[in-house]
């Protein structure tokens, strides 16, 4: 029975330039990226100076510049510094373990951390490496046909690279940057000392051309590929080896999209290696093992090591890629596999809507693919898309779910996003810094797309437990609109590597609450540069994630509209950071806070109390101790007394006004005011005088006197 057609709302026309960067299409947002021009000297700690005027183009890439650096210690050795761009979050947390890897074929990391440009008060994250790369083996990665002898490649490249991958695996590190242009000769001729370059200065695999990435990751946008696994490194190594030994490029002159399309249709091995090329030795076996598109078939590092030891590997159980009995025609092209169809319906939503509406897609899955599981997923996709009603976003929701239904292991595609489950974090960070449309991300986290994706992959026996926990937490953050929550909280929750992106302190590259408060201290040195609001949604969300005890108790205050409450929340939060971070002196910040807390004075009714508080604050503001400021202002008893006194003052005011009105009205007619009292006084005066007269007369008569 034919499936009733799914009704969709009319699809909006695809926006110009909305193609997904890296998803097999050329163009996209990061294509236009230009590194920030830097100049002057940058200091890394006290002992390494980076000369920003000396860029070394052959070691850098499109996104991150490599610069000459020099140790200021007695050895004075030359070093290499990668100065990261804020837009692309570097993998800064794995720096220490990466530095512990001691393998001659891996560029040695000397240190990583904040580099400071004193003149411009700008900090950047930098990786300092030994300057031992030599020249790149190839200048670019595309269309290479080096035609090297397989024995030579085995000896000079395969052996050291497997050793590197083994060491990285031991430290639980995925390199994410294995490609020919990132292999160097170590300063020696004849590939005697091949060295693998750096890959930490960008989000995982971002610098990799799509051809070096497995299909599912190549489909995702470069910023949204996610960390991946060692198997992805092995795949990249397989591609690198193929380019080294091949003499012909079967995809010569083809675009990334066409190469990807070919990979989806014929597999990576057949795409990269021409049948006319004949290779000798066991390298063919290795390349076949590494270039399997199906992860389950692709060799693991253990299998590579076993192969290296000369063991013959038993073939794995293969899961045959589902091929349709009859191809589906969509937009003038025919499809026998679902993966390319998933990509194309995502890129052509209008036509895809007609395909879904007409019921052709459902019928194709049912009759030509005969995949019951996919049919169930199809039904679930429609139901899931309808959950939030058939509003203007319905079509986007439906297409996104259909893409997952058709290509469950591919990236999550929604509107202009194409990201893996891991890669959503770095893509979000990039979107924040580059001021891209964040609404799409909000829709992803608020809607049920991620739930649908996790349900589908769970059905297909993928372990999604960590994703479930993470994305549930994200959804819960999104539901709370206040300060410290929302998309900013999601950003810092998913991206432990990302620095605080608050416009106030972003140039200081603060990664911890202590660095945040020190950034504020530097800022406060110039009071005119201080913002009216120090704590914004970014700062608060950042602090909540980095150390919840310094921010979460004060979220209510910091999110309040009343200025005094906001100021007190800010002061409490900064004080907590200073206390927990054991930072002894913050003189500039304390001085600035003394002005910033003006609204708190206004919370006291009594002008004299305010004056007294101001005096006390002035006494302590140069000591650099925010706790002292807080101690003076955070006084509930003083507030209570002030309020009680204010009530008394109101009562006094009322009494005075009443008296004034009474007196005024009586005094209004001066002829009568005081006359009663005057007459009463005159009675007394008359009485006294008359009494004296009478007594006098009586005495006079008693003494024989006479008046007549």
């Amino acid at each position, binding site marked *: 029975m034919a499936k009733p057609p799914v009704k969709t709302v009319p699809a909006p026309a695809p926006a110009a330039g909305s193609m997904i960067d890296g998803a097999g299409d050329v163009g996209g947002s990061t294509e236009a990226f230009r590194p920030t021009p830097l100049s002057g000297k940058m200091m890394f700690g006290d002992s390494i100076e980076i000369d920003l005027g000396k860029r070394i183009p052959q070691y850098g890439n499109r996104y991150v510049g490599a610069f000459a650096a020099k140790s200021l210690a007695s050895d004075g050795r030359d070093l290499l510094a990668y100065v990261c761009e804020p837009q692309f979050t570097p993998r800064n947390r794995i720096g220490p373990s990466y530095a512990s890897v001691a393998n001659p074929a891996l560029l040695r990391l000397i240190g990583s951390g904040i580099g400071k440009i004193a003149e411009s008060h700008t900090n950047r994250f930098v990786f300092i490496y030994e300057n031992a790369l030599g020249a790149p083996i190839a200048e670019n990665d595309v269309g290479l046909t080096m035609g090297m002898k397989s024995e030579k490649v085995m000896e000079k490249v395969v052996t050291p690279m497997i050793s590197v991958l083994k060491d990285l695996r031991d430290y639980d590190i995925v390199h994410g940057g294995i490609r020919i242009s990132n292999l160097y000769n170590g300063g020696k001729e004849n590939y005697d000392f091949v060295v693998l370059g750096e890959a930490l200065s960008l989000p995982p695999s971002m610098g990799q051309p799509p051809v070096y990435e497995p299909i599912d990751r190549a489909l995702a946008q470069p910023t949204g590929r996610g960390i991946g696994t060692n198997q992805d490194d092995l795949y990249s190594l397989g591609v690198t080896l193929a380019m080294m030994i091949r003499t012909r490029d079967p995809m010569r002159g083809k675009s990334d999209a066409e190469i990807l399309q070919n990979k989806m249709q014929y597999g990576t091995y057949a795409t990269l290696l021409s049948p006319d090329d004949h290779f000798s030795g066991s390298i063919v076996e290795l390349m076949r093992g590494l270039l399997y598109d199906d992860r389950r078939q692709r060799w693991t590092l253990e299998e590579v090591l076993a192969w290296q030891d000369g063991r013959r590997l038993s073939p794995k159980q293969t899961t045959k890629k589902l091929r349709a009995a009859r191809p589906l025609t969509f937009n003038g092209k025919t499809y026998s596999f679902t993966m390319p169809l998933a990509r194309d319906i995502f890129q052509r939503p209008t036509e895809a809507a007609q395909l879904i509406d007409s019921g052709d897609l459902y019928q194709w899955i049912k009759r030509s693919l005969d995949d019951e599981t996919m049919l169930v997923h199809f039904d679930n996709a429609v139901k899931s898309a309808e959950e939030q009603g058939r509003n203007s976003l319905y079509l986007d929701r439906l297409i996104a779910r259909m893409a997952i239904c058709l290509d469950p292991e591919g990236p999550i595609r929604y509107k202009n996003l194409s990201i893996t489950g891991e890669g959503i974090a770095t893509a979000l960070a990039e979107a924040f810094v580059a001021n891209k449309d964040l609404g799409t991300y909000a829709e992803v986290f608020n809607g049920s797309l991620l739930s649908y994706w996790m349900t589908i992959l769970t059905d297909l026996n993928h372990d999604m437990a960590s994703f479930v926990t993470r994305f549930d937490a994200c959804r819960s953050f999104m539901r709370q609109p206040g300060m410290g929550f929302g998309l900013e909280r999601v950003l810092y929750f998913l991206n432990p590597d990302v620095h605080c992106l608050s416009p106030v302190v972003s140039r200081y590259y603060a990664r911890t609450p202590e660095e945040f408060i020190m950034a504020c201290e530097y800022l406060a040195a110039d009071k005119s540069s201080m913002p009216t609001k120090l704590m914004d949604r970014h700062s608060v969300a950042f602090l909540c994630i980095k150390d919840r005890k310094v921010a979460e108790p004060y979220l209510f205050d910091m999110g309040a509209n009343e200025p005094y409450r906001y100021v007190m929340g800010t002061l409490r939060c900064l004080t907590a950071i200073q206390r927990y971070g054991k930072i002894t002196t913050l003189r500039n910040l304390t001085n600035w806070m003394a002005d910033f807390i003006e609204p708190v004075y206004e919370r006291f009714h009594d002008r*004299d109390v305010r004056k007294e508080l101001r005096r006390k604050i002035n006494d302590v503001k140069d000591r650099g101790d925010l706790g002292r400021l807080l101690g003076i202002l955070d006084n509930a008893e003083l507030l209570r007394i002030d309020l009680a006194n204010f009530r008394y003052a109101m009562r006094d005011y009322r009494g005075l006004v009443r008296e004034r009105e009474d007196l005024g009205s009586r005094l209004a007619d001066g002829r009568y005011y*005081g006359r009663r009292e005057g007459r009463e006084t005159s*009675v007394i005066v008359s009485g006294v005088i008359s009494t004296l007269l009478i007594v006098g007369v009586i005495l006079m008569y008693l003494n024989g006197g006479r008046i007549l």
Partner: protein
Amino acid sequence: MSKANAFRKHLLTFVFLVTAALFGASTMILFFGMLPTIAANVVDKSRQKSRAISVGMMNLSGVMPFLLELWMSPAPNSFDHALTILLQPKTVVIMYSIAAAGYAIEAAVTGMVATMLQQRAAARLRRIDFEVQELVDRWNYYVDGATQLDDAGFPYPNDD
């Protein structure tokens, strides 16, 4: 008026008339001597009759020497002697002058006291204005209670 009160009033009137008749000479001096008081009582419309009292007391002190003159004479209750006293100009001048002094005292003291009280009230008004301004300066304008205040005693934002 109850019967007992009416009887008491009548009794008192009777006693007064009898006494006046018995001491006719003294009554005659008192009547003519206290005429200014009677006039003041008629003129004074106030409830307290303070002017009549002031004039009356002074008037009485003016009449007292002549009553003593009568009482100390050989014929203390003689109408002739009383008439002789009354017919002397000096008697009338003294009695009525002292009654007039009562008028003067009443007018002067009343005016003086009223003026003084008015000045004190005006000073108090100025003081009240000052204290009210001080309260406003110290506690802000809404100390007057005319503005609706929140629990913390501050005006609601829209009242500002």
